[in-house]
């Protein structure tokens, strides 16, 4: 032990100044980025009065410690968390899968008019949420029910007798609509991410598979899909964070209280007349948990995907 300690001290003695500078800079960076998080964590364990008395980032004293804020936040957000996951996980998976298939169709298979479709899809990335809010709401509230009623009652009129009604916009339908909206909105960016990745896959390998007798779908299923796992990690993390953090679409599409997603519940939690910083901070931390978990789980794959290995 003592020998290794000696080695360590020797190492310290011989460390170059530039290296010490680098570590100092990195430590400062860590402190800079983690400082707000640390403040939030400290604040959520403090009572209101303790928060008023102490510095925001100082840990709570024995008398100022409480779990009430966390409990309030957790209880308020819990149904929202479930709703958010119910909505965000399918939306993420669907947009990643469809994005990957679209990208495959636009890179590896060649057909006429491809460029036009690529241009449209790339344009789709830049449509702001605000621009589509009204048409989106009209589509889900009026256009689609009208179309569906007409379609079902015309085609299956002999069963329904022309009396079928689109189900009222209950909670689950609202979540489903939100999920579909996000899935559709995510396809362009996912397509772009996968496309740049597929362009780097060797053409000869695809040709070899064609000579091996594989159909277009079989090539996707057996060659492209297994090779795009790192890229899936990237798109899943990115898309999940986007969908999960969105408040705007949720506000427009979800009005049933029981179906509200985490961001809506968080807004409700913090939007009271009296600001209670400890519950606000607790809410923020609780709401951030799922995205944090996703990063931790897929972090390694994410790094590989970004590095293009």
């Amino acid at each position, binding site marked *: 032990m003592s020998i290794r300690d000696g080695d360590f001290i020797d190492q310290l003695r011989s460390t170059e100044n530039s290296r010490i500078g680098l570590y100092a800079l990195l430590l400062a960076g860590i402190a800079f980025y983690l400082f707000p998080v640390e403040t939030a964590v400290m604040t959520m364990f403090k009572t209101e009065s303790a928060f008023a008395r102490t510095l925001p980032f100082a840990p709570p004293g024995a008398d100022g410690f409480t779990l009430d804020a966390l409990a309030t936040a957790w209880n308020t957000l819990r149904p929202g968390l479930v709703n958010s996951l119910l909505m965000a996980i399918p939306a993420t998976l669907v947009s990643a899968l469809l994005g990957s298939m679209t990208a495959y169709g636009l890179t590896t298979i060649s057909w006429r008019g491809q460029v036009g479709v690529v241009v449209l899809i790339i344009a789709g990335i830049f449509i702001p949420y605000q621009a589509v809010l009204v048409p989106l709401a009209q589509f889900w509230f009026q256009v689609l029910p009208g179309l569906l009623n007409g379609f079902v009652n015309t085609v299956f009129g002999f069963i329904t007798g022309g009396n079928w009604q689109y189900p009222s916009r209950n909670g689950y339908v609202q979540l489903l609509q939100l999920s579909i909206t996000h899935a559709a909105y995510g396809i362009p960016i996912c397509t772009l991410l996968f496309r740049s990745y597929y362009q780097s896959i*060797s053409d*000869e*390998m695809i*040709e*070899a*598979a*064609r*000579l*091996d*007798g*594989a*159909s277009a779908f*079989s090539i996707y299923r*057996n*060659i492209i899909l*297994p*090779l795009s796992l790192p890229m899936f990690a990237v798109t899943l993390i990115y898309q999940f964070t986007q969908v999960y953090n969105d408040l705007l679409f949720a506000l427009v599409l979800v009005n049933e209280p029981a179906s509200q997603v985490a961001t809506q519940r968080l807004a409700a939690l913090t939007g009271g007349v009296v600001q209670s910083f400890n519950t606000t901070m607790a809410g923020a931390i609780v709401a951030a948990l799922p995205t944090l978990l996703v990063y931790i789980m897929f972090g390694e794959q994410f790094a590989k995907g970004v590095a293009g290995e």
Partner: protein
Amino acid sequence: MAQLTLDKVTKTFQDDDGEIIAVDEVSIDIEDGEFLCVVGPSGCGKSTTLRMIAGLEDITRGEIRLDGQIINDQPPARRNVAMVFQSYALYPHMTVRENMAFGLEESTDMPDDEINERVEKACKDMGIFELIDRKPGELSGGQQQRVALGRAIVRDPEVFLMDEPLANLDAKLKAEMRTELQELQQDLDVSTVYVTHDQTEAMTMSDRIAILNDGVLQQCATPLECYHEPNNLFVAGFIGEPSMNFFPMTLDGSTLTGEWFEYELSDETVAAVEGTTDITLGIRPEDIELVQSDTGPNVFDSTVHVVEPRGNENTAHLQFDESMDDQFIATVGGMKQLNAGQRVKVRFPENAIHLFDTASGQAIRNRTLDEIETVESVV
């Protein structure tokens, strides 16, 4: 049993400036079990030709027939051809076994155990059985090459197509694989089209060589025919290493006059070149003789510029005139000592010279092959 026929196969690409002809009316018959090398400089259309046979490229005009059946519009999988790519194109996420089985799984309804049996047999034949459960990333270049070959063999195709399969190997391994590939092809007796830019590979491996330049077939003949009886200047210059020496000359009576020397032709040769005055004289480096004195006609003085010893032979870069850059190359035996700066006398024997029409490039007279002797078998 398969005979592959290319009948006036043409491929054009559309460009901003109009049409680019990549392959121009190439017609070749590949006999059953024949090993045909397609050679040419880069961009000559050899890979495009191969890809058209494979079905990876559309055919603009002409026909490709396999055993008399036109296969122009057949998808690649239905043509019963297997291709080996320069990059090997192995599937990186699959093991060797899966790589080799993939084609059989996709193109046949063979039961799994039969596929497995065939894959294992092919692996044993290729000497890669102990690697069967590894992934391509864990294999060396040579091993990946074997897997790529094995993947083609296991399909039991009518035709093998190979696109510079040895280009990524180091020189020694390349020479080994060349022999091995040749043996393999003879054992399997499958018609093979092999594309390469390396004329040594083409010379040593093939039954016949097809030489392409700018999309046009220059000559399709056995390696020795291409070497000794080239159709034109391009073939003469492309086949052979170091290349044939060329000298532009003008015919005047029975004398060829060039910038550096005059060459006396025999009556017989003069009769053969009748009617052409602008003539290019070609002679292979090994046919140039070093002589001690002016014995007979066509002996010229020259200076040794650079000598490249190769052990078995010396490649000498010679000059007629030291002040000019008029180099030509002669190869002499490895035991003959030559030094830079030395003056030597060289003889261009008339039976070894090739004469080409300078304007059209066509061969008018090729070397005579009287000296070819057959080695008698020892009883």
